[in-house]
């Protein structure tokens, strides 16, 4: 493994590469999507500095190998946090580069946006070994094509990101949760939709089928949280009596949802994104195959787990497709990941454009070949 300590040396390593490279940070998400066939590994794990933190400008820059946990600890010193609330399901060694490369967002995505909405700038090395920067450190920037956004979620297939700059926000004074009990998935999601369609700025909206719990989170100043949770509970009274959780209980609850603690993870794990009201249908469609899960993002994000075989995977994909949504195979044994569509296939027109774009970034095709799709 090559794990340089400077961006210059990353560029050097790319220029000197004689074949495909497995591009990664700490490699915590290696079991996600397709396996990469590469003789060498290029890691950013030794680029670990926070290079800029301006709390009054809501901005932080960090080298790609900086651990998410270290970034969150630094933000906490100024009472701030990552807006997208990235899940910690891949352990404490996840790097910020990995979070950005996978566009990995948690419950707050439903209101605050995804990681891709907060990435302001990126430094990266392209396949020719050139060091490039796109975007910047300011919150509003439309100068040229938004390559920072395009690299976010590209799974290391276009360029090796060496530093990312992202927007952050204050941790709110209080958190509250409105909990409704005993609803089936369809009713639960109807309640979530009503909550997200209310004026109370719901920042988390999840449904847990096993416990038949419907949860709506509000984060704000304490007086607002009190006011809004009560108003929301009253507005949702047709869905039954609500329980209201305070800050401490809410924080624990939503951390567990963020990290999928209630997912009794089997061999395979999928993430499916659909229009929110289609979430319950996805759960129902795969139930008989022994696939279980829960709903986040108001019903739109379906976390699923079940047996790792082609038939089950095909059923999950079919359910996502029927709901006009998309899927990611988040975890499965390598043989399965190597032979199935881990993300939805593209149209032929888009595939042709995609290949031409990839060739412009990585002419030799050396970065994570096959990670998203078979060649």
């Amino acid at each position, binding site marked *: 493994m090559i794990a340089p300590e400077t961006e210059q040396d990353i560029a050097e390593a790319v220029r000197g590469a004689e074949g495909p490279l497995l591009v990664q940070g700490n490699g915590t998400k290696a079991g996600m999507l397709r396996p990469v066939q590469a003789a060498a590994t290029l890691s950013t794990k030794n680029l670990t500095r926070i290079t800029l933190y*301006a*709390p*009054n*400008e809501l901005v932080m820059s960090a080298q790609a190998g900086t651990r998410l946990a270290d970034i969150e600890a630094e933000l906490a010193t100024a*009472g701030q946090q990552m807006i997208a609330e990235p899940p910690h399901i891949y352990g404490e060694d996840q790097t910020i580069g990995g979070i950005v490369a996978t*566009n990995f*967002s948690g419950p707050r*995505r439903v209101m605050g*946006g995804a990681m*891709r*909405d907060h990435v302001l700038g990126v430094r990266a090395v*392209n396949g020719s070994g*050139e060091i*490039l*920067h796109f975007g*910047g450190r*300011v*919150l*509003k*920037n*439309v*100068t*040229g*094509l*938004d390559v920072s*956004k*395009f690299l*976010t*979620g*590209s799974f290391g297939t276009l360029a090796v990101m060496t530093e990312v700059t992202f927007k952050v*926000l*204050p941790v709110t004074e209080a958190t509250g949760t409105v909990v409704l009990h005993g609803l089936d998935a369809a009713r639960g999601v109807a309640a979530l*939709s009503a909550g997200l*369609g*209310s*004026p109370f700025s719901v920042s988390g909206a999840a449904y847990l089928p096993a416990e038949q719990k419907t949860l709506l989170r509000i984060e704000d100043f304490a*007086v*607002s949280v009190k*006011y809004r949770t009560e*108003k929301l509970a009253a507005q949702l009274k047709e869905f039954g009596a609500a329980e209201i959780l305070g800050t401490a209980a809410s924080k624990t609850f939503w951390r567990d949802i963020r990290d999928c603690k209630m997912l009794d993870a089997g061999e395979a794990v999928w993430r499916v*994104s*659909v*229009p*929110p009201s289609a979430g319950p249908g996805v759960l129902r469609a795969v139930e008989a195959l022994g696939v279980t899960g829960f709903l986040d*993002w108001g019903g739109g*994000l379906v976390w699923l787990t079940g047996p790792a075989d082609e038939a089950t995977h095909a059923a999950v994909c079919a359910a996502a497709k029927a709901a*006009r*949504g*998309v*899927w990611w195979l988040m975890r499965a044994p390598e043989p399965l990941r190597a032979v199935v569509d881990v*993300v939805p296939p593209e*149209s032929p*027109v*888009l595939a042709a*454009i995609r290949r*031409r*774009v990839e060739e*412009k*970034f990585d002419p030799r095709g050396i970065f994570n070949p096959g990670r998203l*799709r078979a060649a």
Partner: protein
Amino acid sequence: MLQPAPKPDVLAKRAEIIAGLRAILPSDAVIGDTISLKPYETDGLTAYKQAPLAVVLPSDEGQVVAVMRFCHLHGIRVVPRGAGTSLSGGALPLEDAVVVGVMRMNRILEINYPDRYAVVQPGVTNIGITQAVQDEQFFYAPDPSSQLACMIGGNVSMNSGGAHCLKYGVTANNLLGLRLVTIEGEVLEIGGTHCDAAGYDWLGLITGSEGQLGILTEVTVRILRSPEGARAMLAGFDSNEVAGACVDAIISSGIIPVALEFMDRPAIHACEDFAHAGYPLEAEAMLIIEVEGSEQEQTDMLRRIRDICAAYHPISMRVSETAEESAAIWKGRKGAFGAVGRISPDYLCMDGTIPTSQLPNVLRRIGQMSDDYGLKVANIFHAGDGNLHPLIMFNANDPESFHKAEAFGADILCLCVEVGGCLTGEHGVGVEKRDLMSVQFSPAELAQMRGIKTAFDPNWLLNPAKVFPLQ
């Protein structure tokens, strides 16, 4: 300004091309005579004018496909156009180009409240989306000053912002899906009605691409529930430094107002003369701060903000008590460009972004430049997110004055880059800032962006001579 030489073969075949377009479109959808072309020769950046070869006004995606195939086959350049409100010349025609105006594609196709989205055609106005959903108390968040006229297709192409994007984000943060037609006449479907892409973020790449990659035919936007209410306050300060420090203090306190706007003395005077909003004329700098929520929440939040402002010795502070007062406060701000236009009919509106802590420094240096160039400037600033709009006043009848204004503007944008910011926060590069791109990007970075453009449009027929410096 240098423009690429028109293609002689295209100019020579003008009559044939117009006849060819008439054969594939309804007869009233092709404009070819000199007088009817006149309204299309410029956009919101009126300093530049160029009549196109022809204008076509398709009314559905099928017609866009037909036009693109025709233009691709004959090697004809294509310039997309929405309402023509671009402040960077994004819709400026070329002599040998066909302008594709999307204004007839103005239908709202679907509204879904439970899933909180609307599917609209590109010629729907920005305000038109909000108007379509406001009876259910929903709205579409990005609110550029031109929102009464500008179209969602243009908003997506330029990734438009607005005064309220501190809380709600810019266009890119409020989209779910797009349909567009490539230069080859192929239809691409990007995203949908769900969140996030499994694979590359084409939605993010196409948003803000200024018509370089395709012509939009359908846009799926997120719609949001309106807040219970909103209220604005004003605070006047006796220096830009103090007002800037107050902005820092508000953000650092953990309060993110829905809008946080800054105006300097010339801007305050221009806007007050126009809107009579009760702006403090004796102040050197003024903040407009808006909060949202219930009556009680607004009062509580404004109290916190007033307490913070008080530490910076404001020379005036006023919380609006009624919806009318709030509206008057915003009328001044949203009418700022028109207000400056009353003082000086000709002005250039610049659009850089800076790290907010650089504000006092940047305003001081703009003041020095103003003296050096002998041109007046008024500064309006989305202070929460660092987006600065200096309005440079000049006399268009005096070519020297115009050239000075352009040079002044370029100096300001270079300064924005120098202090860690960028050339454009929300207006786009267009033709206006095209030749400054190398101030912000290295040759290799520009080559990488050009490569993406080439992957979509190998012959560079789509909106050429914009965004990238001419080579």
